[in-house]
């Protein structure tokens, strides 16, 4: 063991020394290893743009053209969307939409069905909040598009997952595609969607579905493969047909996992609300985006809170539904109550106009208050805030950025290939080295390194804060439930919400982006650390105590060592969260790949956006595979996995 440890140190020291030598003296010798020669750049962006043009203008399936296909898809989505929108917001001709009282009442009935009185109260409070703060109309537009996107996302993910489960060949084919879809930033495929489906709510629903479907697909595959083999044998033994096997054995047995997927689809759809408004979703997302653009923090914050209220209500309801409660009251009695609510609320509307539209005089607004707070802080503490910002920028961020951008791509590729080789053999080495070369070949090296620098610093800070909190929570059992609620709630917030306070205090720039990314990425760092420590075999802790270890020794010598694989996975998730947030911070003026994607979006340049998006995905995939490899090795060494 010791011999291997020494060998690893020697290998790494040698590799780093070689790299340092190369950086110092290599530039005049091999300038091409530092800056990818322009002549050899991959014109991937042009290829993609050409492909899009071809799809749009020339592609045909014989009977119908590609264009007809996109139009048909749009029409299929448009119809139910208009129906739901009419019901919630616009009304049908002379018929008014459901009033706020009716919708809030219905939400309470659904809440009660899923989780009893507590959830009914929460649902009611959430919708009341939206009404009181005057966000009702926008919120219903948003809710309408969620109500359309979520079922499509669930059905699509389920179908794809089932198909992948049945045909192993398809499974092998879609796994890398899913990896890519989950790591590629949303902005990148907004452009193609925009080009194919035009600006409007339908395009927004499609982008939302594309974003929310991969996790459902993956969770479906996973839950189906986790159905005990005995249940499958049972299905065979009683002579199930294929159809019966799927619908009577597999899906009911995988139900719990599938409901987690449903919850994921809902949360991701809500997360998309603001981004989708860039291609015409309207509603709350549009309000937030517009407020952010004119730096009206108060208005943005209120619309943001309304999204959070929606998110919390939908999240809790779907989670409660996932918890299987046998013998829950029969569905038809709820149907009756729901009808009664509708009739009652409708009747009230006749006599009381306030039951239809929430009365304006009873509305509250904290918008000006928040704007005043921000103004106050900026007037009185401007110097202090500037000093903090400049300190970090000058001493940490800028030097690190310069260092990374100065690195030769060849050296980085070689180093990551070495890491891949040590952690997972030749295949991983080829993957990590190869992807670095591809990134360099697209000519986006500098932007990529800027992404790595921001992401790297953010992850380090998030881990530095998250690890101790996680350890503390795991050591003090009384802390964990409260902390868990906080993390869960933080994770239901759409990522844009994190951007707002940071922008308010520090305006635009890398430091603001960094703060938002850290705030967004800290939750998994805490969660995985705490769960990892709690998951350590209690017998080992007991053995440690029996040997007379102090609390510190138990933590340091037993728990942290055994929890290492989990903590590594937490690191992995932190990086993924940081990368996804980083792209959104392009709105506050970073100069990384995210900005490249964002510019492409504003120019509707599909090729440019997709290429930059792919680069982000490649960075994510390299980090993911290397850390997974390290976690696997750690598990194997601990005998937790063979």
């Amino acid at each position, binding site marked *: 063991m010791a011999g291997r440890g020494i060998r690893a140190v020697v290998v790494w020291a040698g590799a780093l020394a070689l790299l340092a030598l190369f950086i110092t003296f290599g530039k005049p010798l091999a300038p091409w290893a530092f800056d990818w020669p322009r002549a050899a750049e991959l014109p991937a962006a042009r290829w993609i743009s050409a492909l899009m043009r071809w799809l749009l203008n020339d592609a045909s399936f014989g009977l119908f053209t590609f264009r007809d296909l996109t139009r048909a898809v749009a029409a299929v989505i448009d119809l139910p969307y208009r129906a739901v929108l009419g019901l919630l917001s616009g009304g049908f001709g002379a018929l008014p939409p459901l009033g706020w009282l009716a919708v809030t009442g219905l939400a309470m009935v659904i809440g009660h069905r899923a989780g009893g009185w507590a959830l009914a109260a929460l649902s009611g409070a959430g919708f009341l909040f939206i009404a009181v703060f005057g966000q009702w109309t926008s919120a219903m537009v948003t809710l309408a598009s969620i109500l359309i996107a979520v079922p499509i996302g669930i059905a699509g993910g389920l179908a794809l997952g089932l198909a992948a489960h049945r045909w192993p060949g398809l499974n092998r084919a879609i796994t890398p595609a899913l990896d890519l879809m989950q790591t590629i930033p949303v902005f990148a495929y907004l452009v193609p969607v925009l080009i194919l489906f035009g600006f409007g709510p339908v395009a927004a629903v499609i982008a939302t579905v594309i974003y929310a479907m991969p996790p459902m697909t993956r969770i479906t595959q996973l839950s189906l493969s986790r159905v005990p083999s005995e249940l499958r044998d049972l299905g065979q033994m009683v002579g199930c047909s294929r159809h019966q096997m799927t619908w*009577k054995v597999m899906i*009911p047995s995988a139900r719990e996992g599938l409901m987690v997927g449903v919850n994921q689809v809902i949360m991701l759809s809500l997360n998309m609300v603001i981004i989708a408004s860039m291609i015409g979703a309207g509603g709350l997302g549009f309000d937030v985006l517009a407020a952010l653009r004119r730096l009206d923090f108060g208005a943005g914050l209120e619309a943001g809170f309304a999204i959070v209220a929606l998110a919390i209500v939908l999240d809790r309801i779907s989670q409660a539904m996932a918890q*299987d409660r046998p013998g829950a009251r029969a569905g038809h009695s709820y149907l009756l109550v729901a009808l009664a609510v509708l009739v009652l609320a409708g009747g009230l509307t006749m006599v009381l106009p306030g039951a239809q539209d929430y009365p304006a005089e009873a509305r509250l607004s904290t918008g000006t208050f928040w704007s005043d707070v921000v103004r106050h802080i900026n007037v009185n503490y401007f110097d202090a805030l500037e000093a903090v910002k400049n300190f970090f920028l000058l001493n940490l961020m800028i030097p690190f950025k310069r260092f990374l951008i100065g690195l030769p791509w060849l050296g980085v590729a070689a180093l990551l290939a070495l890491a891949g080789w040590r952690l997972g053999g030749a295949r991983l080495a080829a993957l990590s080295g190869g992807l670095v070369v591809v990134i360099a070949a697209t000519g986006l090296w500098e932007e990529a390194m800027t992404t790595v620098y921001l992401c790297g610093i953010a992850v380090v800070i998030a881990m530095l804060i998250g690890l101790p909190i996680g350890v503390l929570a795991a050591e003090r059992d009384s802390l964990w439930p409260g902390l868990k609620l906080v993390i869960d709630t933080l994770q239901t917030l759409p990522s844009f919400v994190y951007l707002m306070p940071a922008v308010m205090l520090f305006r635009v720039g890398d430091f603001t982006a960094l703060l938002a990314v850290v705030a967004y990425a800290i939750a998994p760092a805490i969660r995985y650390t705490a769960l990892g420590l709690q998951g350590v075999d209690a017998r080992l802790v007991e053995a440690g105590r029996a040997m007379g270890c102090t609390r510190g020794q138990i933590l340091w010598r037993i728990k942290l060592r055994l929890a290492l694989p989990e903590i590594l996975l937490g690191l992995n998730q932190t990086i993924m969260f940081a990368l996804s947030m980083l792209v959104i911070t392009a709105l506050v003026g970073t100069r990384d790949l995210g900005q490249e994607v964002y510019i492409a979006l504003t120019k509707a340049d599909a090729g440019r956006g997709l290429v930059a998006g792919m680069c982000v995905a490649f960075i994510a995939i390299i980090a993911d595979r290397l850390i997974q490899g390290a976690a696997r090795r750690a598990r194997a060494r601990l005998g937790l996995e063979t």
Partner: protein
Amino acid sequence: MPRPLPEPMPALKPGPMPEPMLVCRDVWKVFGPQAARVLSDLGPEASADQFVTKGHIPAVRAVDLEIGAGEIFVIMGLSGSGKSTLVRCLSRLIEPTAGEILFHGENLLAMSEDRMRDLRRHRMGMVFQHFALLPHLTVAQNVAFPLEVQGVARSEREDRARRMVALVGLQGREDAFPRQLSGGQQQRVGIARSLAADPELWFLDEPFSALDPLIRREMQDEFIRLQSVLKKTIVFITHDFDEAIRLADRIAIMKDGAVVQVGTPEDLVMNPATDYVAEFTRAVTRPKVVPVTRLMGPVTGPDPDATLPARTRLAEAAPLFLTHETVRITDEDGRTLGHLHRADVVAMMLEG
């Protein structure tokens, strides 16, 4: 030296059944991407290591078995011996790599998917180690599930499920969900379900291994009771030798995918074929495996009032002789087969 046992009566002599219901001929199961080719390349004599170096695992090796109608046939082996794979080959849940499996003389491996499904629906039942109850269905719905799959009308299958639930002693729990039941109760549901379609061939894959020892004993008694009523042909898998000798008419002992020895419990204990079998039987005393029919004499004098079924082992019969001098041995239909006297039993018990 134990004294030689008297010769069994000709009518009860165990031996090859007149018409075997299920026959295995040279059945192989090799796991791996090129199983059939690797098997034919290496040939039947190859060692396990030779398979492993080619990336394949021989789970079942050249198994020949004959299982007679109405017999309780126990396949015993430690974990990894291939017994679960073998039982899944018998019902073609796992496709064997080579060999023949004849059910009433017809080769299962040559059957179409549809025919096989039909066979499983109507003529085979299976009980699983971890119960394999569907979590979203009630007890009654779980038991009725095989009938639902067959498309039996609701009222009929509910009726049948109720009777099956009663048969395993779970009346009143029809509307409970599996997670509300204890392990023993869950397996009772599993048993009721496997019997719902009234199969003739009944597979039990380590049905009691996941249960506590006390419950296990209780379930074994229950199983013996059920079989005395139902008279199925049974293939019973276990890793517990005590369970095997308690329940079996005949036992096949498996090691590394191959059947080492097949015989009655008594055969195995008296004449272990290999050291491996001897290892299992060493701690087993003869009275535990010798059936009462082996020591009984012809009917002499008036019938005593105490009776024992023919398949009772001596060790289990012994306590009865504390209060009785002579006991009548009866067959399944209650007819007298012979009389067993205390002196013979005592002599055998003392020898151990």
